[in-house]
């Protein structure tokens, strides 16, 4: 597995975490948990966008491995 595809796997996991948090957010009625999820999912979102930039960068550097 190239580094590029490893980073892409990680990006996919981040997306799945974000969706999982959204699911939990929708199913819980507890106010404390709701605000914590809000904060956490903001963090995850920033991280995901950052990693996305990195993926674009990697793809540009090694176009022969682009998938």
């Amino acid at each position, binding site marked *: 597995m190239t580094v590029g595809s490893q980073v892409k796997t*990680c990006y996919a*996991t981040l997306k799945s975490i974000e969706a999982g948090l959204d699911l939990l957010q929708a199913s819980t*009625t507890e106010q*404390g*948990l709701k605000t*914590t999820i809000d904060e*956490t999912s903001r963090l995850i979102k920033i991280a995901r966008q950052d*990693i996305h*930039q990195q993926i674009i*960068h990697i793809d540009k550097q090694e176009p022969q491995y682009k998938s």
Partner: protein
Amino acid sequence: MPEWISIIIRSVILITVLFFFVKWLGAKQLSQLNIFETISGIVLGGIAAFHTVDPYNSFYYALLAMFVWFIAAFTIEKLSLKSKRIRDFTDGKSTVFIQNGKVMEENLKKEGYSTDDLLEKLRNNDQFLVSDVEFAVLEPTGELNVLPKRENRPITLKDLNITPAPDKEPQTVIADGNILLEPLANASLNPTWLEAELEKQNVTIDNVFLGQVDHQGQLFLDLYDDHIAVPEPAQSALLLASMKKCQADLELFALATDNPQAKELYDRNQKRLQEAVRRMEPYLK
């Protein structure tokens, strides 16, 4: 009227009367009754028993006597709820046996407790050394309640400075194959959700003996057919695990790369994930 019929009729009526009197007098445990309540309870039972087996006694006398005893007990109970003084008189006061780690010998003597009795009561409370006890009080019911010294108390999350996630009571939403609507509403869920959840786990409602929802909205099921394996609710554990995995991956990338810019980026996001895990961990455990 033959005597045996008279006895049957008396029994049935007195059982009903006694049942309602005791019910109205309150639902206290036998051990929690004060002296007066105990006496009136015994007397009510005695009157009922006496008049049941003796068909020659006037039945109205039985009802009258029971009514008087009931009214007396009832009034005293209501009065003692209102006034502290009457309560002290009927229920008795509690007596301090150990204060600031020192045994109050006077109070022991007053209540008729010997050293052995005191030690036995302390041992009942898992205290084998008097020096471990800060405060001990004998309740009017004859029970000894013990406050151990600070260092001997069981450790709590507060002592460890851990903030636990708030926890709500679970709701039982399925019992004996029937959906219970009221607990379901208490958990702010609806039958449609429950049906979808059952479909996800591939079971029919008739097969469910017991279903409970925890505060995170996860459903636990116990089936009549114990051969069918039901997955334990693992949604939140899975989420936490994938967050941890992602964090570890990013850390690995940061170590593997030689490019300082990329290293910085992975490191930054690794820290974000770490923070996210730290925040969510108490809720997802």
